[in-house]
C-alpha cells in the first residue's frame, strides 16, 4: 500500500519509513519510555518534544539503535529490526548529530566531514596507507561528495580550519555536514539549535529545510525551542514522563489540552 501526501509547499511525503510499536525502555527500576508507538514517514520532518526528562533523548537513542528497548518492535523499511552494532546502524542509512557536539577538535573541518564517509571507503588498509589505486579513487570520489556538502552548508571559508577554533554555531553546522556526508535515509538531530543565538537558529532552520527539500532526507529532531519546532516540522510527537501525550500536526499538538498542561502546568482545583 502506497500513500503519498503532498504538503502545502509541494514536498512529497511517502510511506512509513520507520515504525515504532509499543516501545518500553527501562534502566534498572526507572522506566524511561512507557509503551510508545509512532511512525516516521519518508521525506517528512518529525519532531519529538517534551519537557526536561521526558525521555526524548532516550527515544532518539532507541531510534538510532544505541539503546535496545526491553519491549516493543522497531520496523525499518518494512523489516523488523533487531539489536545492532553502531556500524550496522550507519550502513542502514541512519546518521545523527549530538546534543553536546562530538567532533574531533584537532582535525580540520574537511577531515571531520570526511569521517562521515568512512562507510563508503572499501579499499583495503594497505592500499589506503599507500594511497594507491582504489584508495586514491575512492578518496577523490568521497572528497567530491564532501565538497558538495561544504558548498551546500556554506562553510567553504573554514574548510581547512581546525574544528576546535570554531564558534559553537559553526561547530553545529559542521556536525550536520558530517552526518550528511553519510548520505543518510534518516537524519537524527539532537537539539540542533541548543545554545544558538537567533541568527544562528534561523540559519540552522534554513539548512534543515534545505536538506529535507534538496536531498529528500527524512529528519527526526528533538528540540526545545517551540517556535522552531512548530515552523519546521510536519508532525510532532509530544512526550511527558516517558509517555506519549500527543501526536499530530503542529496545530493539532498546539491545541491539545494535555500538551498545554504538560508545558504550562495545570490549574489546581
Amino acid at each position, binding site marked *: 500500500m502506497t500513500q503519498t501526501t503532498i504538503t502545502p509547499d*509541494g514536498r512529497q511525503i511517502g510511506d512509513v519509513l520507520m515504525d515504532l510499536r509499543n516501545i518500553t525502555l527501562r534502566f534498572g527500576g526507572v522506566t524511561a519510555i512507557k509503551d510508545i508507538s509512532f511512525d516516521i514517514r519518508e521525506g517528512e520532518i518529525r519532531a519529538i518534544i517534551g519537557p526536561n526528562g521526558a525521555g526524548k533523548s532516550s527515544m532518539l537513542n532507541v531510534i538510532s539503535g544505541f539503546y535496545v528497548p526491553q519491549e516493543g518492535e522497531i520496523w525499518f523499511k518494512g523489516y523488523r529490526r533487531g539489536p545492532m552494532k553502531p556500524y550496522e546502524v550507519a550502513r542502514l542509512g541512519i546518521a545523527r548529530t549530538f546534543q553536546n557536539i562530538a567532533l574531533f577538535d584537532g582535525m580540520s573541518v574537511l577531515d571531520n566531514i570526511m569521517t562521515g564517509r568512512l562507510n563508503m571507503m572499501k579499499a583495503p588498509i594497505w592500499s589506503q596507507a599507500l594511497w594507491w589505486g582504489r584508495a586514491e579513487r575512492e578518496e577523490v570520489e568521497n572528497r567530491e561528495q564532501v565538497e*558538495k556538502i*561544504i558548498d551546500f552548508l556554506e562553510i567553504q571559508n573554514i574548510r581547512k580550519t581546525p574544528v576546535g577554533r570554531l564558534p559553537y554555531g559553526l561547530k553545529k553546522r559542521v556536525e550536520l555536514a558530517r552526518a550528511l556526508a553519510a548520505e543518510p535515509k534518516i537524519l537524527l538531530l539532537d537539539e540542533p539549535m541548543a545554545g544558538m543565538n537567533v541568527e544562528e537558529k534561523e540559519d540552522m532552520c534554513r539548512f534543515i529545510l*534545505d536538506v529535507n*527539500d*534538496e536531498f529528500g532526507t527524512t529528519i527526526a529532531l528533538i528540540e526545545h525551542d517551540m517556535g522552531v519546532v512548530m515552523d519546521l516540522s510536519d508532525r510532532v510527537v509530544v512526550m511527558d514522563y516517558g509517555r506519549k501525550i500527543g501526536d499530530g500536526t503542529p496545530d493539532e499538538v498546539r491545541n491539545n489540552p494535555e500538551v498545554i498542561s504538560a508545558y504550562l502546568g495545570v490549574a489546581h482545583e
Partner: protein
Amino acid sequence: MQNAEAAQAGLQSIPALLARNAERFGDRPAYREKEFGIWQSWTWAEAATEIRDLALGFLVLGLNRGDHVAIIGRNRPAHYWAMVAAQMCGAVPVPLYQDAVAEEMAYVLDHCGARFVVCGDQEQVDKVLEVGDRAPSVQHLVYTDKRGMRKYDHARMNALADVQAEGRAAQQRLGHELDERIAELGYDDTCVMLYTSGTTGKPKGVVLSNRNIIETGKNTASFDQLTAREEVLAYLPMAWVGDFIFSVGQAYWAGFTVNCPEGAHTMMTDLREIGPTYFFAPPRVFEGQLTSVMIRMEDASRIKRRLFKHYMEIARRIGPALLDGKPVGALDRLRYMLGNLLVYGPLKNTLGYSRIRVGYTAGEAIGPEIFDFYRSLGINLKQLYGQTEASVFITQQPDGQVRSDTVGVPSPGVELKIAENGEVFYRSPGTFVEYYNNPDSTASTKDAEGWVATGDAGFFEEESGHLRIIDRAKDVGRMADGRMFAPKYVENKLKFYPNILEAVVFGAGRDMCTAFVNIDLTAVGNWAERNNIAYASYQELAGHPQVYATIKEHVEAVNESVAQDPMLSGCQISRFLVLHKELDPDDGEMTRTRKVRRNIIAEKYADLIEALYDGRDTVSTRTEVTYEDGRKGEIRATLKIEDARTFPTRTMQKVAAE
C-alpha cells in the same frame, strides 16, 4: 597606430574581442572559478562556446535587440558570460548590486525596463519576485545556482545551464540570426549600463558605449603594459564600473585571466591561492589587511616581533626608493634583500601579493602610513581617480611617480581643466554617452563640447603636474566667518586612525566645526580585549570613557595638523561625539560603495547636531535601524559630547581676503 587599425578592422564590440581572443589565445585560461574546493577553468575558446550557447538560449527565450538584461549576483564566470551573451543578442546588460534591497531593485528594474533578469541564486530570485508589479517589464528570470529552486513556478523561469542547453540545441536554427546580430554591433552602440549609487537622489543609469569601454581598456592596458598573462581577482561588485573595466574591458582587450572567488567570505584565501599580478582594491581592503597583520604581529613571539620591527624600519627607508628606481647604496640593497628573504617575502605571500606587478586603489583617500606600508614591501601600489561617467579612468599615477596625496596625471586620452570654483572637468574617449532616460541630468553634467563636471574640487600641483583632490565641490563651503570649510579633508585625516572607521564633519555656515565619529569595531574591540575592558555591544563600547579619551586624542592630533594649513585651519573640530551605531548603507546613511551621504545623516541625526552646537554635555536619541532582512527596529542611546582642543593657525594670521 596599430591599435587604431585593429579597431577599424572590426574589433568594435566585446563579442568581437571575444572572437579574437578565442582565436589568438584559444588555449589560455579566460576564466577561473573556485567551486567545490577546486579551481575550475575555462579557456578563451571554451568561454566563447559557453557564451555563444547562452546567447542562443536567450534568442530561444525571445530576447530582442535593445532589451535590457539585468544581472544580479556575485562575481561568477556565468554572470560575465550573461553580460556578453546579452550583448551578442544586441541587448544591453545592466549589472545590479546584489546586496540591494527589493525597493532599490524595483526602482532600477523599472527604470531600465528590464525584460530578462539573471539572478545568482534563490535569494536574488526571491527579491525580484518580491518586486513583482513594481517592475512590470520583467518577463523572464534566469538563475545560476539551482539550489532551493526546485519548487518554484517555472512558467517564467529557467536555470542558466538549461538555457545554455536549449541554446545548443537551437544552434542550427538560430545560429545565423545570432551571427547577424553580432555583426550589427557598432562602436557607438551601448556596451553596458551601470547605475551610479549616487550620494544624492535616485540612482542614474550611465550608458557606456563600446567605444567608451574598448578605448579605455586599450589606453589603460598600454599605460601599465598589461598582457594576456595577467591574473586578476574579480571580487568587487559587478555593478560597479571598475569591475566592468577590469574584468571585461581590459580583460577582453588584453586577453588576461579573470579569477572568481568561491564566495565573498573566502576572498582572502582565494586571493592567496591566485596571487594576482594586477589588483584593485578600495583603501578599506588594504586598511583591513594592515590592521590584521598588526594585530597578529602583537600576538607573535618577541623575536618575531623584533625582527618584524627592525626590517619594516629598513623597508620604510629603502623600499619606496627601490620601487621608484632611485639610486640606492649597495649595503642598503643587501639589507633589503635580507629583509625580503626573512620578512617581506613571506608577508607578501600570506597577503597574496607576491606576484603583483600593478596594484591600484581608489574611491576614497588612503592613509599615508597604509600606502607607504605596502609600497615599502615592494608592492607597486598606485592611486587612480575616476568615476562611472568616465569609464573609471580620469587620472592615474605612472610608475615611479607615486605619492599618497595625489591622484596622478591625466590618463591617456583624457583632457582635464579646472573651473573657477576649483571643480575638476574632464573630456575623454571614455566619457559616457548619456544618463538613460534622463536628458536633464545628462545636460547638466556634460556640456556640448563633451566636458564633464566631476563634482570634485581639486588643483594641479605646480612642480609635478599631479592632480590633488580636496573634497566634493558642493561640500566645500564657508563657515559663518567666511573661512573655507572642506569636511572631507578633515574626515580623511580622522579616518587614517585605525580606531576610526568613519567620521562626518559639520560646520558649513556655522561658527565652529563639529564631528560624528564611528569607531572601528575590529581595532577598538581588539584594544578593549587587550586592556580587559568588557563590553556587551557596539553601543556600549562606543560610549566607553576610555574610547572617548582615545578618540579625543586623535581629534586633537588632527586639529593640530589641520592648523598647519592656513587655508583650511578653520576646519578644526571643537566638539565631537561617538555615534552609537555604525553608519550603514541599509539605513541609507551611506551609498553601496560606502560613501557617506551627508544630507541624509544631517537630517536623520538633526537632534545630535543641535546638541553639538548648543553646548550640552549629553544627548538622548532614538534611531531607526533596518536589519539585513528589511525589518526595522529602534536603538535608543544617551551620547556624551566631548570638547576638543583647537590650535591657532601656525603661519602668520592672514585675514581672509574678502
